[in-house]
């Protein structure tokens, strides 16, 4: 019962995210969708993952999103093309996005078709923080470390890109 409530909330909120003209509302609806996902995690007996979902995604990342949207102060998405044109005939970025979306759908279908029979990932449900920690630093240590390197690369990249404008300016 609660599952259907949270699932419906997540889906409706996600759909409304792309239906909004105002980016601030999009950000808020995305937070709502994250909240619904967190509710699903609670139903799955994973309170730790649920709270982390809220702290990391709804709390930290979306505040940054909102920060950027507010700084740009873009009240409405700019549409510099005719609304009536066929989606495939619209300029560059949109067509690229459509290709990416199709790729994602294909990937999802493939993944679901492949792993449909298995519903659980391990024999015992991993609920406690200690168990998650132990798994992360033993069985999945390699993936964990690679992820941290990836994040480091992204951080260095962001710093480099932010710094570039300062070259000519006096400090």
């Amino acid at each position, binding site marked *: 019962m609660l599952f259907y409530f949270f699932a419906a909330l997540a889906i409706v909120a996600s759909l409304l995210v792309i239906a909004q003209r105002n980016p*601030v509302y999009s950000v808020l609806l995305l937070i709502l969708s994250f909240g619904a996902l967190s509710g699903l995690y609670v139903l799955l007996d994973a*309170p730790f993952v649920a*709270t982390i979902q*809220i702290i990391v995604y*709804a*709390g*930290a990342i979306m505040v*940054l999103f909102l*920060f950027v949207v507010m700084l740009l102060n873009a009240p409405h998405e700019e549409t510099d093309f005719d609304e009536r044109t066929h989606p495939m005939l619209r300029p560059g970025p949109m067509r690229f996005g459509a290709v990416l979306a199709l790729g994602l759908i294909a990937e999802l279908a493939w993944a679901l078709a492949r792993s449909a029979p298995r519903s659980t990932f391990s024999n015992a449900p991993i609920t406690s923080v200690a168990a998650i920690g132990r798994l992360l630093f033993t069985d999945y240590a390699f993936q964990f470390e690679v992820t941290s390197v990836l994040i480091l690369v992204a951080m260095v990249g962001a710093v480099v890109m932010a710094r570039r404008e300062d070259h000519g300016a006096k400090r």
Partner: protein
Amino acid sequence: MFDFLSTNSFLIAQIGIVVVIWIALQLSAAVMVYAERKVAAYLQQRVGPTRVGYAGLLQPIADVVKLLLKEELRPAAADPILFYLAPIISATAAFAAFAVVPFGGSTTLLGLLTEPLPLHVADVNVAILVVFAITSMGVYGIVLAGWSSNSKYSLLGGLRSSAQMISYELSYGMALAAVLVLANSMSLRDIVNAQSGSLFGIPQFRWFLFFQPIGFLIFFTAGIAETNRAPFDFPEAEQELVAGYHTEYSSMSFGLFFLAEYINMVTVSAVATDLYLGGWWLPLVPESWGWLAFLAKISVLLFFYIWMRWSLPRYRYDQLMAFGWKVLLPVSVLNLIATAAGVLYFGL
């Protein structure tokens, strides 16, 4: 009727706790308003409110009545939905965060109940993370208030708030993590009970404050920044931004922000008490009266809050950012590493 009462007395007591906490949090805001005005007055060699009630004790009630009777205004250019949603988010998050904070040991209410009742609204095994998650939701109230007002002062206040929260939440979390390592648990009740042992030969005195003095300072400093109190009250810096994010608010919508700020202070103090000051454990105080000790400890911390606001000038904004990222964060990471090493090699 009486059958129902006797068989379900535990459930009724549990619901009673929820109601009591809800009312107590609102009253705490009123008490804090009075305390703030009085302490501020005495720090400035004035006497503060004296007219309404004995020694001005009814002043907060007069303030609330005044707020309720004021006209509710909304700027024409403001976003109608978000403008009203923002104070609600702020107040809801402030109230909700206290739901997982335990504030006393078990009590039978002087023998009224057959089994002891633990004093908390909900006991979650990741309680400390839940508090963290809900406070991070509270930011949206301030940020949205800033944006939806469609006023430059409000917007600047909202932007400052989001940047400040992100910067200080990191150190806040790192300071917390050191306590979690010491207590080996994420449940606030377990953390408090881990501090009930004896230290220096005094029973019920094994407070984490003595193992984590730096962690406590970091936690409390970041807590002041998180609650937007002076000297870190940039989102509402009066001299620069009129009133910051709530410039355009009037009547009870402003009142809700005000309420949220004071309740957040109470919550931060309560969490700090649970984490560092031994919760309801005080030498010579029996467990069933622990909530009084808890109340006393919170009051001391809250007095500190007020004391600080009226003694320290506000930092500059770049100083705040530099302090958060270049001092507080490295120190809190070092503190965490040192604590982990201490637990691993010396078994603290």
